[in-house]
């Protein structure tokens, strides 16, 4: 019963979820009682939340949580202390896949190696003097050191897959060594969340079942029930009406034309019947066209309505999501979801749903009619139909493979383009045009070859399929001809001409539904993939949310306090480590320090783009998490290093945060931002369109527009993030003047690498490695021997002199 590897562990787990016999076996008493079998049983029988367990089994093939028996054994060894955090380690010392665990309680650490489920090492946390992680390509080693220079207390080997969960445990140990209390949550949830995060970031699988996704998509049709019913009725009407002309044609030949030509009856007596048949054929065509028009119109509009609803819902939801979500997802991917994916869903809802059901009904209807008309010929035609559908399905699969190859080659081609077109100056400067031409030529040739393989495939397949259908017609003729000639064979009695003509007409209708049904799998796959991408956004909960009854601070005074704040973007690497400070209203705080030290993160926390992981940020004595974020953010202004202007006029851009501002106020703000003069020099003044496809402004001009926007918004707390770093000296002077006006009377946090711009700051905060390393005025810190700020100033002065 003991699983040999992770895959076996997980397959048993999956069997449990599916309720199969294998799980029954796992539940049965183990042949040799012991921890190992308990270990397996625990993994199987103590599931995490169903979705989590499914994800673990499906993607990771490793336990979804710590087995209960192991938990009990370890807690016993810890003297009853509960486990605070744990991680799975998947490599052994020889770098072979081997399950293991690293477990942590308030005062102890335990390491479990191998699948025995017994503790390999256990020791007091107080024995740890340092924690260290050695990072490799796919193998990391966590070392818990005791006596320096001696064998570590524990060495845990793990792949990148376990990096976050091991990192969490390591972080708790590091925080304890620094004398800080780490944030401890539910150990199982922390393990699951940190381990699954990369998969969920790539996919965020909410509904793993394609059918569930499909049903959910179809549920969007509910508000349009009447339209759906009408559309579907029209579609079924088309199917039924399509069957009428061949039937009447057969009747006309056998019961009208045949007897008249044979002299069995007079033409006059058959005239009315003949014209009625013709009228029936004509009427069926007219009604069919009406149904077709109705179906196309209703379903096309329906698809648009649903796609429009989805777009509205997705876009609205996107604005509710936290900044962290946008950090995880590519912009292009999000735009695609709102645009192309919803469009693809329109295609599926408008035509896919109807076409597929219509084709199925058509095939069934045709087969039934043919069997009723003549079951022998009917069988001859109906039996190969599933084979044709299967052939189309298989061809679709091989085409998918070929398309995959083609997309890969195509992406190489676009890589060359996206490399060389933006970088054309470098290409020319280094005289590398010939090399780039060769690169492009090679990629282009590969792409052409690959697409030609696709063409070779389909141009071979479809003529073959058509030929097979034609062979079927020949087979029908072969079977029918003796019967038509009145020479009955083993293949049935004499056959009337009318029946046979009906047959041939019905036969011609087989091709299109066969093609559609053969492509159902591909169509469903495309639709469910798009639906999933859309639902993924809809199902993502914002990480930063307002409480049920948020506090509304209006106006904000600008008193800011950080109390032992800790934060890390991935929950593992701490970017802010226990930061504490207080800023009074009206103070100008300069944030300085090396890149990556945590300055921008501090700003992100203050604006509440992210929530702290531990500690508190208080604004006017209220925790920012308790504030109504909309009202709070309206009173926090931000001027970024790379100002962003929206497509629209300069007027719209200045008014962005304050749409009802008067034109006088806009001009006053522009004057304060030193923007008025250059705006007036533009031919269309404040009505000049800027942004994407608009008038090109220089970096300094864009910056001054963004300052004007901030002036108009009149924030109580102002954040300047490298606002003057990307401009020349003269522009910097103008921007600095504008900023001087802007900061008056507000609490300001200004990040700057050019330290000279911060000399007027009330205080300077030197931030290094996520900590507040130095605090003081420029004069105080410049005079501090060996200080970081003093060193930074000296370096900049040296650079200035060297320049």
């Amino acid at each position, binding site marked *: 019963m003991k699983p040999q590897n992770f895959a076996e562990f997980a397959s048993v787990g999956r069997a449990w979820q599916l309720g199969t016999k294998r799980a029954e076996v796992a539940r049965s008493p183990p042949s040799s009682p012991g921890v190992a079998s308990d270990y397996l049983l625990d993994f199987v029988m103590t599931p995490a939340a169903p979705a989590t367990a499914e994800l673990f089994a499906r993607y990771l093939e490793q336990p979804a949580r710590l087995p209960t028996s192991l938990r009990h054994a370890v807690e016993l060894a810890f003297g009853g202390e509960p486990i605070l955090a744990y991680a799975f380690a998947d490599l052994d010392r020889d770098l*072979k896949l081997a399950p293991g665990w690293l477990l942590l309680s308030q005062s102890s650490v335990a390491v479990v190696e191998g699948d025995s489920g017994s503790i390999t090492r256990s020791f007091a946390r107080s024995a740890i003097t340092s924690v260290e992680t*050695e990072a490799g390509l*796919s*193998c990391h*080693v966590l070392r818990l050191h005791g006596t*320096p220079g001696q064998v570590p207390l524990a060495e845990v080997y793990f*792949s990148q897959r376990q990096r976050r969960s091991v990192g969490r445990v390591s972080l708790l140990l590091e925080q304890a060594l620094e004398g800080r209390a780490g944030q401890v949550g539910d150990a199982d949830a922390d393990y699951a969340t940190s381990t699954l995060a*990369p*998969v969920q970031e790539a996919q965020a699988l909410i509904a793993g079942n394609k059918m569930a996704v499909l049903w959910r998509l179809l549920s969007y049709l509910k508000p349009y029930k009447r339209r759906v019913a009408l559309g579907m009725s029209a579609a079924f009407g088309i199917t039924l009406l399509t069957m009428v002309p061949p039937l009447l044609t057969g009747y006309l030949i056998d019961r009208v034309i045949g007897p008249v030509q044979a002299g069995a009856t007079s033409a006059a007596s058959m005239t009315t019947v003949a014209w009625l048949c013709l009228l029936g054929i004509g009427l069926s065509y007219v009604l069919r066209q009406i149904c077709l028009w109705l179906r196309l119109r209703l379903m096309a509009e329906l698809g648009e309505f649903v796609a429009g609803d989805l777009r509205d819902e997705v876009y609205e939801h996107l604005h509710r999501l936290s900044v962290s979500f946008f950090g995880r997802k590519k912009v292009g991917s999000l735009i695609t979801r709102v645009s192309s994916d919803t469009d693809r869903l329109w295609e599926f809802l408008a035509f896919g749903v109807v076409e597929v059901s219509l084709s199925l009904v058509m095939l069934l209807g045709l087969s039934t009619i043919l069997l009723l008309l003549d079951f022998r010929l009917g069988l001859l035609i109906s039996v190969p139909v599933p084979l044709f559908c299967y052939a189309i399905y298989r061809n679709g699969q091989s085409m998918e493979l070929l398309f995959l190859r083609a997309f890969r080659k195509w992406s190489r081609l676009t890589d060359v383009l996206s490399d060389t077109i933006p970088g054309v100056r470098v290409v020319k400067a280094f005289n590398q045009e010939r090399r780039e031409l060769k690169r492009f030529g090679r990629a282009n040739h590969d792409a052409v070859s690959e697409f030609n393989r696709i063409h070779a495939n389909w141009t071979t397949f479809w003529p073959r399929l058509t030929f097979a259908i034609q062979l079927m017609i020949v087979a029908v003729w072969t079977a029918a001809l003796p019967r038509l000639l009145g020479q009955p064979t083993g293949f049935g009695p004499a056959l009337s001409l009318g029946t046979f003509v009906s047959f041939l007409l019905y036969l011609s209708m087989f091709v299109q539904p066969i093609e559609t049904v053969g492509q159902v799998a591909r169509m469903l796959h495309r639709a469910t*993939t798009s639906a999933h991408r859309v639902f993924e956004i809809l199902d993502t909960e914002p990480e930063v949310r307002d409480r049920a009854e948020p506090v509304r601070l209006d106006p904000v005074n600008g008193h800011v306090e950080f109390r032992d704040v800790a934060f890390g973007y991935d929950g593992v690497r701490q970017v802010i480590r226990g930061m504490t400070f207080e800023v009074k209203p009206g103070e100008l705080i300069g944030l300085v320090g090396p890149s990556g030290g945590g300055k921008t993160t501090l700003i992100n926390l203050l604006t509440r783009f992210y929530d702290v992981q531990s500690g508190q940020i208080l604004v006017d004595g209220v925790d920012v998490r308790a504030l109504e974020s909309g009202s709070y953010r309206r009173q926090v202004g931000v001027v970024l290093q790379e100002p962003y202007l929206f497509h629209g006029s300069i007027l719209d851009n200045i008014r962005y945060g304050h749409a009802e501002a008067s034109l006088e106020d806009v001009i006053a703000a522009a004057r304060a931002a030193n923007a008025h003069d250059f705006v007036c020099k533009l031919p269309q003044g404040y009505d000049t369109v800027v942004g994407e496809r608009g008038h090109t402004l220089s970096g300094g001009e864009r910056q001054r527009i963004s300052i004007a926007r901030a002036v108009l918004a009149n924030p109580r707390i102002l954040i300047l993030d490298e606002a003057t770093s990307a401009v020349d000296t003269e522009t910097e002077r103008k921007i600095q003047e504008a900023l001087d006006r802007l900061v008056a009377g507000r609490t300001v946090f200004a990040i700057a690498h050019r330290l000279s711009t911060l000399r007027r700051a009330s205080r300077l905060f030197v931030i290094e490695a996520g900590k507040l390393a130095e605090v003081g005025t420029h004069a105080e810190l410049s005079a501090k021997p060996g200080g970081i700020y003093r060193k930074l100033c000296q370096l900049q002065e040296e650079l200035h002199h060297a320049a």
Partner: protein
Amino acid sequence: MQPELIADPPRSRRHLDLPATRERNHGEATSVPAHPRLEQRLDGKLWLLSVEPPISVEIVRCFPWSEPNRFLSLRDANGEERAFVADAAALEERSQHSLMACLSRSGFVFEVTRVLAVSEDFELRSFKVERLQGTRVFQTALDAWPRELEGGGLVLEDVFGDLFRIAAPRELDRKSQDLLSAFID
């Protein structure tokens, strides 16, 4: 594909007469030893003995795929280069032994011997592969194409950042090759 891989391998390049590379450390020029003495100690770490006092270092391969045992940068806890090994073979035996032991860890990737299944899921491509130590399932993003190495190998990076190398895709069994056909030129 990375453009560098199309170009000639570094070894065949003409050596240019460039000024010696120097790292700047707080404004002071420092040279790094090219033939450092190294030792793997009881604490499991690699120690650089050529500086006083000795310090523990981590190895960074400059060319992990094309020259895995040459051009190794040895960096201290602050990430600063403290020694540079142009060729591990040029080190004295003990240092070489210590270095190689640590390199096997830091350069470890999953070596794939068979491909058992490739399937597509929402946003992800799932691979089930066999390696010497057993099977492993991993996922890549749909648009994360395998990287082609000089000499025909493939490297796949999963969503966690783990690397899976297929040294000779053309020498795998027929089924593996079929499953990989979309990713081999």
